[in-house]
């Protein structure tokens, strides 16, 4: 652990330099490894045969040859070995970028990765070897793309997506069509009027141009994700651009196949156009249906997995991959299938599977998508070096310019139309970001790569132009979009967590608007949404969700989560320390309750008695919630799963801890209804030892030791009780069986232990010391902390327990 801490301090620069050197060395070694085998026979079959031969030989001449103690047989393992090397290279690169200070703040990761790819490709070429066809279309579409798309689909923020579906579809379908025909058509025109170079450009026909246009005009989800995740743009814009990049897949697939087909034939009739439109509908709707089918299947399967928890995540992955493959099998849109599959299955699967399975799914998806993305960008760089290139200034320049122009015109024109129908209009700034965020990426390259050299003699030139457009958008637009967002003061994503009041009002507003629509007699969005929700609750959830969770209203679920989160924060904060303003600990129940009996004794006021029934209920709430409350309390980011609480430096922590203890003492003295527990604490080491032996988990450092007391009034239990007869609930969040390990115990007996736990809690909270310096700062810190402490989820709070459709 301490070795990690140095990396973010300025003192670590020298070290990171040496680390960089080390990385370079590793890269070289990797190259060596990956290049070597290429000259030799590469088929695994052959190597296998050789292997067999080798085994035969010693048998025949058993006496003559000594037993080979060490034997080099690289071919035996070379394919998986190379794959591992590439993955290792990608991961190390990713790791390396974050070791270099300030670099990742300026340049998007995608740019860096492409650069690395270029370097690697260059080195391979320098070594005089043939560059492996890394960005092979089959590899790309069957292995690299699905994890990214599934990750995106599974964690798709459904509510904003559905609310803006019309706009997204408009951009994705009409926008992409417009781009394809505008770029293709004008490119053809430019090629025709170019007299200086008749030998190459004049030979291009219209259909290949349109094909090229359709390839180069689609916004790429991988590139968009990579860039937009770093700029933290507001939800609306993010979902507009990202949604477009996902849904335009159907258009691209159809256009691609259409033009590829007709380029061979050479003519297009009206019938072909009609067939194209039908084909588009089939491809998109078919893809969605295939995805939804597999999604429901997953949900249904997960209903019965309560006895085989370990393979729960596998169902999610395999069914999704099956959905993708099934869709691709019929040339339907695989991307749309995956998106639909992930989005449909998620609410039900999450209600069914265990919390650990959910964590597994989340981490695996993140890991896979992250590695895939890294590999894609590196491969893009390598493939660029590899060529074959046919550079044509006119063609390339015109392509880049046309791409930009068509994007701008398309967005402005479409927004003009869309704004007539939208309630929340898109402003000029929004339009600019949508237009500027139209990045192209590896999908375009792979599609270009797929082209048949015989049918399209211009393939090399196309590929070069595609790569140029990709580089231009990823490098120029990707690097400048962040400063531009700052400059234009585009609204950023709200990091604030959702409060229970907001949740209540979200629900309230939904019902209110539905009611008003019904009174008006307009059957609008809210009306149908309400109908769908009710249908979902009544039938679908019953079929797909096991147990009583299917009946739980959203508000209750949210409340349970809140309740739980507060309890965690309470304990993490060390009990007596002032909590951030969002957590109602500075105000207690007696502050809001109308004073009915003024005769209540002070002690009782501070510690309201828990009725037996209530206690039972709390226990139930806790037990059921432990499984799911810690799920996702953080907004979605594909790359950072958890902020390391130890990163801030161990020494700092110790100092802060010291401070905190002092502060705590002060507060204890000040608070009139607080007293330090009378029992003499065990020696801390003893307690720690006891804790360690009792709890065997290493799930996450930040969540290791939490004692917890909870009741409807968090305040009352946030302090150390004065009375020794108050029952409290002790929850050990750390234990893997935590949902069942809820114990009711005498607080008094455990007072000493709790004290120690608090110390632990303090250690996990590097930020707490700062809180008293500045309130705003403290709030921010707390937010960060909350994310550290809670199991950080890839999705924003609001998607949690969302009904099937918003």
């Amino acid at each position: 652990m301490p070795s990690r801490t140095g990396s973010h301090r300025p003192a670590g620069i020298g070290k990171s330099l040496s680390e960089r050197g080390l990385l370079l060395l590793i890269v070289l070694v990797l190259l060596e490894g990956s290049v070597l085998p290429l000259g030799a026979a590469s088929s695994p079959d052959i190597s296998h045969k050789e292997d067999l031969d080798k085994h035969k030989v010693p048998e025949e001449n058993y006496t003559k040859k000594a037993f080979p103690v060490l034997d080099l047989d690289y071919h035996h393992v070379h394919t998986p070995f190379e794959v591992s090397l590439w993955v290792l290279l990608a991961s190390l690169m990713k790791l390396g970028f974050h070791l270099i200070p300030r670099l990742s703040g300026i340049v998007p990761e995608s740019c860096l990765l492409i650069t690395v790819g270029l370097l690697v490709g260059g080195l391979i070429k320098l070594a005089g070897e043939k560059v492996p066809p890394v960005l092979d279309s089959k590899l790309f579409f069957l292995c690299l793309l699905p994890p990214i798309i599934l990750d995106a689909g599974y964690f798709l923020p459904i509510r904003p997506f559905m609310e803006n579906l019309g706009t997204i579809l408009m951009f994705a379908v009409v926008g992409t069509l417009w781009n394809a025909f505008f770029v293709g058509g004008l490119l053809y025109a430019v090629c025709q009027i170019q007299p200086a170079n008749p030998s190459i450009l004049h030979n291009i026909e219209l259909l290949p141009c349109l094909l090229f246009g359709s390839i180069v005009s689609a916004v790429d989800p991988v590139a968009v994700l990579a860039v937009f995740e770093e700029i933290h743009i507001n939800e609306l814009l993010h979902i507009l651009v990202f949604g477009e990049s996902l849904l335009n897949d159907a258009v691209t697939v159809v256009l691609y196949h259409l033009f590829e087909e007709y380029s061979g034939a050479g003519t297009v009739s009206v019938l072909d156009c009609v067939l194209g439109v039908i084909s588009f509908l089939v491809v998109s709707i078919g893809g969605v249906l295939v995805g939804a089918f597999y999604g429901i299947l997953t949900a249904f399967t997960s209903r019965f997995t309560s006895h085989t928890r370990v393979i729960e995540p596998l169902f999610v992955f395999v069914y999704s991959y099956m959905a993708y493959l099934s869709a691709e099998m019929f040339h339907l849109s695989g991307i749309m299938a995956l998106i639909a599959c992930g989005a449909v299955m998620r609410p039900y699967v999450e209600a069914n599977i265990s919390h650990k399975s959910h964590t597994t799914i989340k981490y695996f998806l993140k890991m896979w998508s992250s590695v895939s993305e890294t590999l894609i960008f590196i491969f893009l760089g390598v493939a660029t070096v590899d060529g074959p290139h046919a550079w044509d200034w006119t063609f390339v320049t015109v392509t880049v310019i046309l791409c930009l122009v068509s994007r701008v015109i398309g967005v402005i024109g479409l927004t003009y139309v869309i704004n007539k129908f939208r309630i929340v209009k898109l402003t000029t700034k929004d339009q600019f970001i949508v237009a500027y965020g139209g990045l192209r990426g590896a999908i375009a390259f792979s599609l270009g790569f797929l082209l048949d050299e015989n049918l399209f003699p211009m393939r090399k030139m196309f590929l070069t132009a595609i790569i140029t457009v990709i580089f231009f958008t990823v490098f120029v637009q990707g690097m400048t979009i962040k400063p531009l967002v700052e400059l234009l003061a585009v609204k950023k994503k709200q990091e604030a967590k959702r409060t229970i009041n907001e949740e209540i009002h979200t629900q309230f507003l939904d019902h209110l608007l539905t009611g008003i629509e019904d009174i008006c007699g307009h059957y609008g969005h809210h009306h149908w949404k309400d109908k769908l929700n009710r249908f979902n609750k009544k039938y679908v959830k019953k079929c797909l969700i096991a147990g009583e969770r299917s009946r739980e209203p959203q508000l209750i679920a949210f409340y349970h989560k809140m309740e739980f989160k507060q309890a965690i924060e309470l304990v993490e904060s060390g009990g007596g320390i002032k909590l951030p303003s969002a957590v109602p600990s500075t105000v207690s129940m007696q502050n809001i309750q109308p004073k009915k009996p003024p005769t209540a004794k002070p002690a009782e006021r501070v510690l309201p008695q828990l009725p037996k029934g209530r206690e039972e209920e709390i226990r139930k709430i806790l037990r059921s919630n432990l499984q799911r409350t810690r799920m996702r309390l953080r907004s979605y980011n594909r790359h950072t799963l958890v902020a390391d609480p130890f990163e801030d430096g161990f020494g700092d922590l110790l100092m802060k801890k010291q401070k905190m203890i002092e502060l705590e003492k002060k507060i204890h003295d000040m608070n009139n209804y607080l007293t330090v527990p009378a029992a003499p604490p065990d020696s801390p080491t003893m307690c720690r030892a006891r804790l360690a032996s009792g709890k065997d988990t290493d799930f996450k450092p930040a969540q290791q030791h939490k004692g917890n007391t909870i009741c409807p009034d968090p305040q009352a239990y946030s302090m150390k009780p004065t009375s020794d007869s108050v029952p409290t609930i002790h929850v050990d969040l750390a234990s893997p069986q935590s949902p069942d390990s809820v114990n009711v115990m005498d607080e008094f007996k455990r007072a000493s232990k709790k004290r120690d736990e608090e110390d632990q809690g303090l250690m996990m909270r590097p930020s707490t010391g700062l809180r008293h310096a500045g309130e705003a700062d403290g709030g921010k810190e707390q937010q960060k902390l909350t994310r550290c402490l809670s199991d950080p989820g890839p999705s924003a709070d609001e998607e949690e327990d969302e009904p099937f459709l918003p």
Partner: protein
Amino acid sequence: MNVRRDPLRSLSIPTVSVQSRLVSGPVKSGGRSSRGMGALQSLPGNPEYLDLAEKTGFSFEQIKILHKRFKQLSHNEEALQRDHFNAIPDLACNPIRSQIIEAFFDRRNFRQNGEGIVEEIRFEEFLLVMSHFRPPSLHKIEEQRDSVRREKLKFIFNMHDTDNDGTITLEEYRHVVEELLSLSEGLEKDTAKSIADAAMLEVASISMGHMEPDEFYEGITFEHFLKLLNGFEIESRMNIRFLNMDTTTLCK
């Protein structure tokens, strides 16, 4: 009960003139005296709507359609009563139905600084209540966005504040949550209560900061309410798409 009057309570909802500036439809200034509803009904779709358009910001077309719906609901009477609302079939499964209906009979929502409850409403009041759900136009300056926001939140605040004393007390808030959960079966009342309590605690801690144990938080004032829902983009959420085409034939 120790009720503290909030001095900010008297903040009036945005005046009609501010509203009318947001109007996209034709607005003519000038003191036209409002005519009787009878004349309006006899001549639907004529400039008699002008006054209403000015007051509410709806376009003539929208007013015409809403008027048709009004007559449909009231069975061609001039005024709507609670029973008419209760008879709307789609509303039956809305958990906050009674609150929605009450909002239509609440003088505070008529943009006239009135108070109290009425027994029946005419078309004008119907439109005025509806106008709270009108989407704001694209080109709005920040100040107007703020006033739109206040106005919309005030509407919700009034729905919660049933006794019209300027604060949402704990009892009132509990009632809101209970209503909200009233249609989901298998729940104890305690759950709704504890949710409301937690929410109230949150409000108190957001708006008051630290409180001594003997202090008492009377309830949510409107200022606190604004602060509470600061991150809640009500101006872009509390909107209904008022159609320009007639759909009354489709409705029951």
